[in-house]
């Protein structure tokens, strides 16, 4: 309508470090899910993945909050204040508890698993599942409750975050299990059945994930001005390379096609490629969501 002569731009300061934090908690939640499939739900064929899964979950969850601490202005004060001056209406408040309780639970679960105490492993595994869902779902809530940003402010955001966490976690588990079986076992043979089952799960989760993204964008494109604008920004604007090509085509569609075709899924070359592409795509998704969601000026 007019030409802007002077205006002050919003500082887009919440960006890459938070994206990495979301990415690593997602990987952690995804690998924890895989590790509970056998001990928690009795799916025996996933047993060889369990110990790997719990180690990855704990290590990644010890790594993830470091990005959070680097992001905030006052790292030590933030840990203290999150407990002492808790605001129960803020989604972020619950993160501090989850980020402490979930690794502790995972460590206990892992110790029982390594000691072979099946009953206690099952109990702590089942306690851990809602925690893993919460520790990643709450990150979606943090964004969803940023009321001003139309890209974030949707009820789908926590679910999209959960599904992207699970797909990236499974991709990472596929790679880790291949490396372990190939290089760190006596037989040096990759467990084909396990990898194949994981790849099938990955395929179906990717279908759901793409469907959720489609739902989100179909609503955004039909919504009010700011929502349409951010959808155009993602699909055709500056973010389109990262959103359309890297996140959705490379990160989701191509891996989905690869793992859906049995011939390609059985080939380790294609499967490794699919897993790597998916992990890169989900990292792009975190950056696109966090940075792209607040890149457009509101006023």
């Amino acid at each position: 309508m007019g030409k802007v002569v002077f205006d002050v731009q919003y500082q887009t300061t919440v960006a890459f470090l938070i994206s990495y934090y979301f990415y690593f908690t997602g990987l952690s939640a995804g690998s924890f899910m895989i590790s509970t499939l056998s001990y928690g739900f009795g799916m025996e064929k996933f047993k060889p993945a369990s110990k790997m899964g719990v180690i990855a979950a704990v290590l990644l969850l010890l790594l993830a909050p470091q990005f959070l601490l680097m992001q905030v202005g006052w790292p030590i004060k933030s840990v203290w204040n999150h407990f002492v001056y808790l605001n129960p209406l803020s989604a972020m408040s619950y993160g501090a508890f989850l980020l402490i309780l979930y690794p502790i639970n995972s460590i206990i679960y892992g110790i029982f698993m390594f000691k072979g105490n099946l009953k206690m492993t099952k109990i702590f595994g089942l306690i851990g599942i809602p925690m893993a869902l919460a520790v990643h779902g709450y990150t979606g809530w943090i964004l969803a409750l940023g009321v001003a940003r139309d890209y974030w402010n949707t009820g789908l955001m926590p679910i999209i975050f959960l599904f992207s966490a699970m797909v990236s976690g499974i991709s990472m588990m596929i790679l880790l299990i291949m490396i372990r079986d190939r290089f760190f076992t006596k037989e040096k043979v990759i467990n084909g059945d396990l990898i194949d089952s994981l790849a099938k799960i990955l395929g179906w989760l990717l279908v759901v994930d793409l469907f959720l993204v489609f739902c989100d964008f179909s609503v955004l494109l039909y919504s009010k001005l700011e929502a349409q604008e951010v959808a155009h920004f993602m699909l055709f604007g500056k973010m389109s390379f990262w959103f359309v090509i890297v996140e959705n085509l490379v990160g989701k569609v191509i891996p989905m096609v690869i793992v859906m075709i049995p011939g390609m899924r059985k080939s380790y070359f294609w499967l490794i490629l699919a897993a790597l592409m998916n992990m890169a795509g989900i990292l792009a998704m975190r950056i696109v969501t966090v940075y792209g969601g607040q890149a457009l000026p509101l006023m």
Partner: protein
Amino acid sequence: MSNPHKTENSDLPRFGMVIDIDRCIGCHTCEIACKIENDVPLGIWRSWVKEIEKGKYPNVIRAFRPTLCNHCENPICVKVCPVNAAWQREDGIVMVDPHLCVGCRYCMSACPYEVRYLHPTKGMVDKCDFCSVRVDAGLKPSCVEACPTSARIFGDLNDAKSEVAKLVATKPVSTLKPDIGTAPRVYYIGLDIATMEIKREVKLLWEK
């Protein structure tokens, strides 16, 4: 949305501001006064004047929108702050507690008016607080004091005799983004739509 005038019968003051854009000449004095008073570093502003050039020669105008924290009746930033560092005084001024703020910047991305900034050296979020120190001492905020055309009027909205209350009661005032339900306490007279619109680059789905 709560009643925007719910504090009308209260005994406490409810500070607010009326900005008469018909009087604004776009001199940016309020910006500078605010920077000096609050020691705001380079590159960031607590209050600024957005300037828009619109129309086609010879029918042109520069439209101004002095921007500051709206001191909402229902502030989103206070809700989302995980450590209660964003808080609202009983007289309605929305504050940032420097002892509690940890610099997580959640409030910055949740604020619909984008008036919060990250202080580059303190590592905390900061924003306009209606010069609360001056207000407590019985003075006006420095931007109000500095405005050469008295475009900014500050006072107690609950006091029916104050100038702001009279203006809000008798003039056609508007607030920014009333649809979000934050009930801002910074009112504008003669606000131009061009200064509120974001730059549109998309063709809407229902656009011809």
